[in-house]
């Protein structure tokens, strides 16, 4: 009798505690379990790396810290910083030109300039090697041109240099900054500029003192995307004969040194965390908000005599980052198609690529919804943990994600290992955050009052989610899905390490053929990837 009462007391206490964790608004069990499961899968790579590096032993640690880590740190950080700075400069400048000035061909340029997002950076790297390399097209033209070679001397471009790698990465990462900054430039209220004008500021002062500071959050977000990309890139960096942490991790593994790979991964994760920490700090100290009920479209600046220099600049960037690679690809594709590169095997690869990208983007859209819904509507400590874990894959290079998966699935879920699904799940871990961000921004525009309204009309929470939240989040979620599609169709490292026997994608073929310099086989695949991604990109741009 007494025990029963006591138990009842405990149950009551726990129930109250549970309710208080959730600020008296606990979510449904299904939602919570689903989100937790997703978060758990997302956390696999980190757990693995931490676990593995414990077994490395002090000896290995010491050897790495004295040996390769300092050099790698320098290589990685200097490259990241340079690429980030230039991507930001180019991205912001282009965004500003397109959104806020009367630059000609505005509508066309607006989306042409986002196209580099579709070119897989390792493909870009190869095309630049073909074009700028020591025995590339430009070099040939140079040596044949006696005027240039006598005037300036030997062919001066060394694509396999620090600046070469930086250049390649800048050309293919600036769209992250460009897209995000464009979006927020568009949303900026004209009132701020007029206020500054009424206080006696001229155009240039306004740009420096008003526009730039208020773009800081979006510049920050773009810079983060760029830095994380540089940290995690493997393909382009390997092609360019540069070594960063990610490449080193890959090489260590090919030398059978899993522990060293784990240690390096841990350092890389720390580096990533530092970057994310810096970002979240700068965000916290600057809560920007704008009043929406007096929103007025920003003014468009007349470029005047700057019109043509600006146009030339935009077209130059477009030419270098899109036209040039595509030209090279078309040249080699024609040769390749002539040699029968587009055969049944090619179509099998294309089918695999499409299948992975489609499945991954659909699953990302589905998986993002419960997590985002939980995050936005049921804030609590538990939610925060789930949310942070879900972003883990975003911050990790594909190599690490793949290594974690190899280990965990081999040991615990062998049935899935070596199947198409493991590739899909790994890509979900890498790209879910992209879908989540889109979904979040869509849901954040939907007032929680809308949910309450539906509940006051007799709908239980799960029904509210399907009948009200879902239809309204959908455009955002679809845009996120489009982004995931574009990312996963060109994904390389995780697919490379996890694909089952007999399963190759276009991306893998490009990498294999291109690293053997068999360009005529690589080019048609690369071209196909770009063409297939145009549709989702267009869709996404319309939403941005």
């Amino acid at each position: 009798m007494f025990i029963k009462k006591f138990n009842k007391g405990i149950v009551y206490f726990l129930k109250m505690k549970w309710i208080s964790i959730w600020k008296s608004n606990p979510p449904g069990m299904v939602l919570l379990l689903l989100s937790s499961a997703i978060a758990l899968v997302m956390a696999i790579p980190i757990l693995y790396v931490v676990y593995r590096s414990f077994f490395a032993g002090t000896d290995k640690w010491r050897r790495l810290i004295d040996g390769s880590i300092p050099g790698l740190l320098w290589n990685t950080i200097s490259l990241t910083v340079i690429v980030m700075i230039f991507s930001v400069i180019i991205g912001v400048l282009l965004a500003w030109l397109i959104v806020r000035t009367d630059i000609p061909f505005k509508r066309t340029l607006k989306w042409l300039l986002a196209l580099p997002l579709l070119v897989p950076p390792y493909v870009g790297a190869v095309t630049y090697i073909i074009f700028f390399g020591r025995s590339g097209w430009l070099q040939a033209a140079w040596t044949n041109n006696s005027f240039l070679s006598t005037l300036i001397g030997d062919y001066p471009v060394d694509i396999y240099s620090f600046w070469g790698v930086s250049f390649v990465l800048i050309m293919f990462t600036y769209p992250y900054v460009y897209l995000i900054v464009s979006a927020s430039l568009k949303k900026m209220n004209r009132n701020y500029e007029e206020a500054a004008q009424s206080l006696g500021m001229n155009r240039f002062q306004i740009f420096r003192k008003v526009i730039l500071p208020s773009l800081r959050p979006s510049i920050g977000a773009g810079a983060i995307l760029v830095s994380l990309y540089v940290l995690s890139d493997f393909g382009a960096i390997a092609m360019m004969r540069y070594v960063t942490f990610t490449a080193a991790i890959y090489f260590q593994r090919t030398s059978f040194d899993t522990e060293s790979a784990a240690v390096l991964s841990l350092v890389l994760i720390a580096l990533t965390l530092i970057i994310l920490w810096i970002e979240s700090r700068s965000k916290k100290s600057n809560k920007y908000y704008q009043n929406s009920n007096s929103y007025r479209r920003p003014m468009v600046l007349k470029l005047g005599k700057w019109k043509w220099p600006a146009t030339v600049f935009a077209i130059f960037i477009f030419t270098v980052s899109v036209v040039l690679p595509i030209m090279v690809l078309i040249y080699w594709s024609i040769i390749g198609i002539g040699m029968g590169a587009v055969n049944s095997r090619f179509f099998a690869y294309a089918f695999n690529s499409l299948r992975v990208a489609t499945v991954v983007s659909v699953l990302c859209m589905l998986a993002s919804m419960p997590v985002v819904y939980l995050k936005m509507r049921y804030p609590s400590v538990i939610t925060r943990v789930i949310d942070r874990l879900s972003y883990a894959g975003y911050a990790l290079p594909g190599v690490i994600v793949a290594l974690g998966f190899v280990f965990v699935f081999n040991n615990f879920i062998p049935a899935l290992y070596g199947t198409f699904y493991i590739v899909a799940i790994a890509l979900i871990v890498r790209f879910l955050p992209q879908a989540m961000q889109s979904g979040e921004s869509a849901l954040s525009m939907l007032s929680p009052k809308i949910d309450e309204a539906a509940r006051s009309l007799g709908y239980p929470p799960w029904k509210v989610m399907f009948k009200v939240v879902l239809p309204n989040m959908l455009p955002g979620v679809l845009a996120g899905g489009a982004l995931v599609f574009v990312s996963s169709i060109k994904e390389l490292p995780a697919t490379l390490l996890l694909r089952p026997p007999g399963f190759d994608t276009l991306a893998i073929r490009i990498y294999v053929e291109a690293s053997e310099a068999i360009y005529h086989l690589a080019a048609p695949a690369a071209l196909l990837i770009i063409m297939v991604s145009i549709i989702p990109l267009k869709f996404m741009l319309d939403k941005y």
Partner: protein
Amino acid sequence: MMYDIELKSVSKTYIGSDEAAVNNINLTVEKGSIVTLLGPSGSGKSTTLRLIAGFERANSGQITLAGKVVSDQSKWIPPEKRGIGMVFQDYALFPHLNVFDNIGFGYKEKDRKQRIMEVIELVNLKGYEKRYPNELSGGQQQRVALARALTRRPVVVLLDEPFSNLDTDLKNQMRIEVKRIIKEAEATAVFVSHDQKDALSISDKIVVMDEGTIQQIGTPRQIYQYPKNRFVANFVGQSNLLKGRVDTEDNTVETRIGIINCNTIDGGFDNKEEVLVSIRPDSFIMDHKGKLKGNIKELSYTGEAIEVVLEVQTPNNKKHNLLIRVSPDKVIHIGEEIKFNIIPNFVSVIKKE
């Protein structure tokens, strides 16, 4: 007497906050009446409403809707099962549904179509069925929100600051219309507002709240004419507060500006007790034979009246400022001396705290 809503000793403290947002509230609302919760920002109005709706959980106390306990220590009925209708400050219309579907959301009886058309007619929106919320004006959205809350014939309609987004003209118009609609639908309604004009003109009963507690419950006239304490006197309309000594036999209060007549003095004051007296600006009547006089220090023309700050000489030669409201047809100037009397209708006596 039948109550549609009953709150018994309800308290609510948000997690992470030390003070109770709602503190031991007792409230009954009669069937078919309109009640307004009135109070400054942060006084717990929305919290009270959300407790009734079930969007928040009370820490203690009991809530009864239409005779059925919906929340106490052991019982909890979620919002979707309470049979309430709610109108939100920003309307919270479903952006993906048109007017018809917004209004019919959650209503699945056989007479769906007919009922929706009935409600649409009630709110005067015939012809707008196919529009989406973003194609409606603020006032129309407001009416859709109201219609949506009424479709299911709820026991109780709750409205959280439904007018605060409207501009003055539309607000005046909506106030009258909402009152008509609610009365026609025979619903019991609880409004939340921090605008006294809303509250005074729409309600059968007003609940004045401050810092989570109820300060006074009464009809609009009771609240305005006889505020029970300093807070109510100041918050509902403007008021001049003076210290004084009550004379329960003469129904007067002796203050520094003279002896003031009151209509009634209830609430158990001792004779000669120190009290506060609240005199509404409307209580002062300009009269060239008036007993009191003062100099005009400031004046502000509001169309319907002239609000004057008057500097009054007290018997012991000190100065005291009074806010009085003068009929707008009077022509007066700053510096001028005017004489006046105080009529007792807007004078009330308040305990000195």
